[in-house]
């Protein structure tokens, strides 16, 4: 999956530049789930999230020319559009009615499930999440998935404003480490699986 990221990204960007609608189709196929995950974690309602997801892709299409490759990866740009749209939506909703306090510690992980591929991902995710320090995971989730501002983090987690930045760096460093570990492990597992299959084949077991 990750090996193809850059190619997919190049393809989408090239289509976006040409104003070719295939950009949206490919982007949706490759990033739709990830963006929906972000939106759902911020707005916490499937109905609202569905609307926003549509808006986000329309926005990606309309604002395609404002994406500048030299400023960062495509997904960073798209995820920012998704997060901002989600935050706008809850702010509007908040101003309409007094927002009830929702627990942000357990986003909708339990909704993950279903087909085979999902369970593999679920397993990988659980492994990465479990290996992160709790305080680091919360910090990443608050900012990335809940769209918390620096001040809100300061208030919610009691981290001084001046150290939010360096703490977040440590948290993401740890995430980077874990993701890398995990990739090596996955590679090893797939190699072992392949070797045992070919061994079985050579011994005429198939």
């Amino acid at each position, binding site marked *: 999956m990750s090996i193809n990221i850059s190619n997919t990204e190049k393809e989408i960007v090239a289509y976006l530049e040409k104003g070719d609608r295939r950009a949206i189709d490919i982007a949706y196929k490759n990033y739709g789930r990830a963006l929906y*995950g972000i939106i759902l974690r911020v707005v916490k309602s499937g109905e609202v999230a569905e609307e926003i997801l549509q808006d986000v892709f329309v926005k990606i299409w309309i604002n395609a020319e404002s994406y500048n490759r030299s400023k960062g*990866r495509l997904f960073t740009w798209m995820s920012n559009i998704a997060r901002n749209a989600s935050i706008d939506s809850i702010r509007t909703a908040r101003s309409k009615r007094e927002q009830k306090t929702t627990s942000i510690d357990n986003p909708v992980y339990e909704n993950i499930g279903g087909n085979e591929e999902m369970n593999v991902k679920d397993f990988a995710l659980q492994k990465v999440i479990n290996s992160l320090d709790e305080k680091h995971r919360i910090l*990443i989730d608050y900012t990335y998935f809940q769209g918390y501002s620096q001040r809100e983090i300061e208030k919610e987690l009691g981290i001084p404003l001046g150290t939010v930045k360096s703490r977040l760096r*440590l948290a993401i460093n740890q995430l980077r480490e874990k993701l890398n570990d995990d990739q090596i492990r996955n590679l090893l597992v797939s190699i072992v699986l392949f070797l045992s299959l070919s061994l079985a084949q050579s011994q005429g077991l198939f």
Partner: protein
Amino acid sequence: MDIKKYIASGILEHYVLGLASEEEQKEVEMYISAYPEIKTELEAIEVAMEQYAQLQGMDTPPDIDAKINSQIDALQKSKPKDSGKNDSSTFGGWGMTLLLGGMLLATSWWALSNNQKAAEEAGKFSTLSTQFETLQSDCDETSKENEVLKDKIRILQDPDNQVIKLSEAQDKYPDVLASIFFNKATQKSYLRANALPDIPSDRVLQLWAIVDGKPTDMGLVEVSTNSDDLIEIPFIENAAAFAITVETGKNTAPNLDELVVIGNVTS
């Protein structure tokens, strides 16, 4: 420009998470085009967050892509559409792919098993570096706090200090207290708000010095009440007294009806 320090500050993470201010964004964009090291680091952060988001993806409701497409169609009825989906990737040559893949994997296995020990060491090293970075940042914070405390002690312990107690001026504001540390030798003075009243958000606390019988503006008291902060205030050599009043804004003359605390300088 210290690139390592810039990276360690965490600004790039903020940029990726959309937390950076507009100014910070411009700064980061300038630096990533100027310094390849910063660009590489940014990419690594972006990839990690992207993978994390992909792992936490959620199944989308059905037909969303169709709805998106019809919304875009509606937006640009005039424009010619070309949303052909001729993605005909060939699935032929599977055998060859498998064979080549097998060879590749066998080679990687060979290389990996040799390098596993090195990888383990590298993993340990990187865990230790992160731990080190954590400790370093905790340590930096602590020594910063320590410096502030040492400064306070230095100010408070100076034998040339004269402590002026500003106490309750009228019944309207009971149980209030502030102190001024007045040092003629260093020509510095500090204010501590031991207990000042909570005032409405449209009011301010203003400090005054009485010089030759006339009140002189010493500025607003920008301090939370009950704070043990020491705020440096202008040094006025021949002040006879200090006072704090509640004002509607920064005033040129004190509103004496709203006098909160007052204290004389004893010479």
